[in-house]
């Protein structure tokens, strides 16, 4: 039942929008490519239209072969695509070897280039037909650096959300399963302000963060504080957060539908630093995330409130006894955590130019992996864990199909629990 909603169409990446002269499609974390070279014994065949569509007709994109015969289409997600060569656009010097081999069915995934070759001949003598293959490509230093950069980008954004999750866990002891939806909230609010209300993008992000933080305040006032007063058990709280996650996730779907929404009014340009090529919003997102994370670290380390927060994480009873207003600090933590998650969501939406109802859903798993790796309840651990998870997950796509990258995160999670359950920075007595 959710299938149709999940196969949302993701906005196309900038690089592949309109390229007829030199056909390029860079397969990265969020796009895949279907492409090939059209040639016969006389050489490359130019100006042939090839249409890639998927079975549900949710996606259709055409490409025209360039002077060197190459063509490529960026695809938004994993699906079985129908690749059809428009025979009427073939020049008179070329013909399909076997018309029955057109269209070609090709299973394509994100993060990889799938090659579809049509067998063209000079005359219409039948021979062997279309062949296709899927490769993740060879690992070159350039790709290594590129994936590393993507990993850092994802890790920094993940850290924004994970630090909040870790702070909530540290101060209240609760694993908040609705934290992923807070990320989604930030992304979707950015979409509302930027696209629906036509606000400038900076203002949109700010408004999204403020409203996200306000949602944290509202939650603490409306749900969590009353439950703390009633001395509701941690497991109950956890299930309440699951109910909240379910309700929010469906509310997003109710309001925004199942597809991925672009948050930038125009397609962003890319920019290369050495071998690394990222969209400009990605650089900005990384910069913002770094500044905010440093700010959070300074807040926790240098300010009275920050120290009080850490004191509660260490020992709530002792903190309360020494005059810290635990309830006030916890409310602040909720505001801070949801605000950070909202910022993470907004930046994620900018970097990928897409927001969808299930954006935070998958991120939640990586957040859990990150905070467990770093040490549950430690803010700095969450930061380190996020960076490691981000880099490992993105780099794994060099060798593994990108659909397995979340499985890599789970593998790390299980290994950490087996070898060092308290995580990198956690203390052993937390676990038992």
């Amino acid at each position, binding site marked *: 039942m959710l299938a149709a909603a*999940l196969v949302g169409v993701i906005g196309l990446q900038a690089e592949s929008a309109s390229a007829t002269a030199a056909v390029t499609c860079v397969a990265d974390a969020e796009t895949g490519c279907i492409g090939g070279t059209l040639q016969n014994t006389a050489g490359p065949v130019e100006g042939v239209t090839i249409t890639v569509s998927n079975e549900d007709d949710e996606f259709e994109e055409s490409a025209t072969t360039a002077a060197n015969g190459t063509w490529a289409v960026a695809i938004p997600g994993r699906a079985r695509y129908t690749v059809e060569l428009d025979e009427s656009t073939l020049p008179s010097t070329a013909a399909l070897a076997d018309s029955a081999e057109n269209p070609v069915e090709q299973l394509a995934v994100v993060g990889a280039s799938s090659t579809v070759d049509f067998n063209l001949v000079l005359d219409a003598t039948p021979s062997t037909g279309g062949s296709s293959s899927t490769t993740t490509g060879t690992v070159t230093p350039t790709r290594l650096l590129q994936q590393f950069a993507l990993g850092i980008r994802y890790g920094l954004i993940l850290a924004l959300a994970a630090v909040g999750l870790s702070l909530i866990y540290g101060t209240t002891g609760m694993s908040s*399963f609705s934290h992923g939806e807070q990320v989604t909230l930030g992304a979707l609010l950015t979409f509302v302000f930027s696209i629906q209300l036509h606000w400038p993008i900076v203002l949109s992000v700010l408004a999204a963060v403020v409203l996200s933080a306000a949602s944290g305040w509202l939650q603490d006032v409306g749900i969590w504080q009353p439950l703390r007063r009633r001395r509701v058990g*941690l497991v109950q709280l956890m299930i309440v957060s699951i109910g909240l996650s379910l309700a929010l996730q469906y509310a997003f779907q109710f309001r925004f539908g199942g597809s991925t929404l672009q948050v930038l009014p125009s397609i962003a340009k890319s920019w290369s630093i050495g071998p690394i090529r990222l969209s400009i919003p990605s650089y900005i997102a990384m910069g913002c995330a770094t500044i905010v994370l440093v700010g959070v670290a300074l807040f926790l380390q240098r300010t009275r409130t920050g120290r009080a927060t850490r004191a509660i994480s260490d020992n709530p009873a002792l903190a309360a006894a020494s005059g810290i207003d635990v309830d006030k600090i916890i409310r602040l933590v909720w505001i801070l955590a949801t605000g950070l998650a909202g910022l993470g969501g907004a930046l994620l939406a900018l970097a990928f130019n897409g927001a969808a109802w299930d954006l935070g859903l998958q991120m939640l798993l990586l957040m859990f992996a990150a905070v467990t790796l770093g040490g549950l309840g430690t803010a700095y651990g969450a930061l380190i864990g996020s960076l490691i998870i981000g880099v490992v997950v993105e780099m794994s796509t060099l060798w593994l199909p990108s659909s397995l990258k979340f*499985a890599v995160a789970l593998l790390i999670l299980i290994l950490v629990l087996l070898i060092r359950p308290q995580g990198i920075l956690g203390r052993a007595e937390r676990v038992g």
Partner: protein
Amino acid sequence: MNWSDLLSLTAGELIAPTTAAYALAAIGLNIHFGFTGLLNMGQAGFMLVGAYGFAATAQAGQGFPLSALVGVGCSVVFALILGIPTLKLRGDYLAIVTISAAEIVRLIGRSSVLSDITNGAAGIPASRFNKDFLGLSVLPDGRTALGPFAYANNVGDGWWTRIVAWAAVLLAVLLVWRLMSSPWGRVLKGIREDEDAVRSLGKSVYGYKMQALVLGGAMAGFAGVLFVMPASVQPDAMGRSMTFFIWTILLLGGAATLWGPVIGSMIFFVALMFIKTVMRDVLPSVLRPEQLEPLAGILVGITLMLLVIFRPQGIFGDKKELMLDVR
């Protein structure tokens, strides 16, 4: 509004194979959470693993008994893999690992990696794996009508599937009843109440927790087999929402009760169908058709929150029986 349609639609949910599959999965979760206090947040993952194991074996031409056994076996292995690193740790680690693992099974299932077996996001249609199961039917071909329930006998969504599914539910209830009044069951409840006390009596808490996880996981595995029988193995239909629906069912009926999961499942699906049908009739001007499913989901989420806050023991449960604190 057409009342007789509404009535037959909602009554149909009462004995639907889906209701039975959810009931069986909730019985499994009841062993985990209700009796042992384990926080399994990935019950749908156990079901999906079971369904894939079953469908893959049946697709390869094996008979139903062997295929179902392989499906359940896959769930058992899944339980072992998840239990070994987490059951010695605090309760929420199991929650984190199970929710992640279930999601990853779904992601791998819908990816192209194993598409020879899983057929990717499109899923495996039931016609590829339920022939042998339907061939085992003792019913004559044709249709049978009992009051509002009129179904074909030997199709995926027919009487035979319903009979087998509810028989499995009854067997599971019987098994839980015997087990929980046995010394083994009392140890489980002891673990739920006070792990350290049980440990001090010389019991291997880890071992008992693992047995409970495996038993409940195996039930979920067979529930997965039942769930896919009428339609298809569709990974996206067996994601987080399914797990949370199972939790809602369990908490609605009452955790740590014998019949709670079964009655909970019936109430849940009848109510869900009733609400959806009424909404479809009453609100066509306000709602787009594709908004119906999310609206029902919002209601389930809110129900779950309210249940846990105001009546954690559910309809039949005993509040004293509910261990609701992380150990």
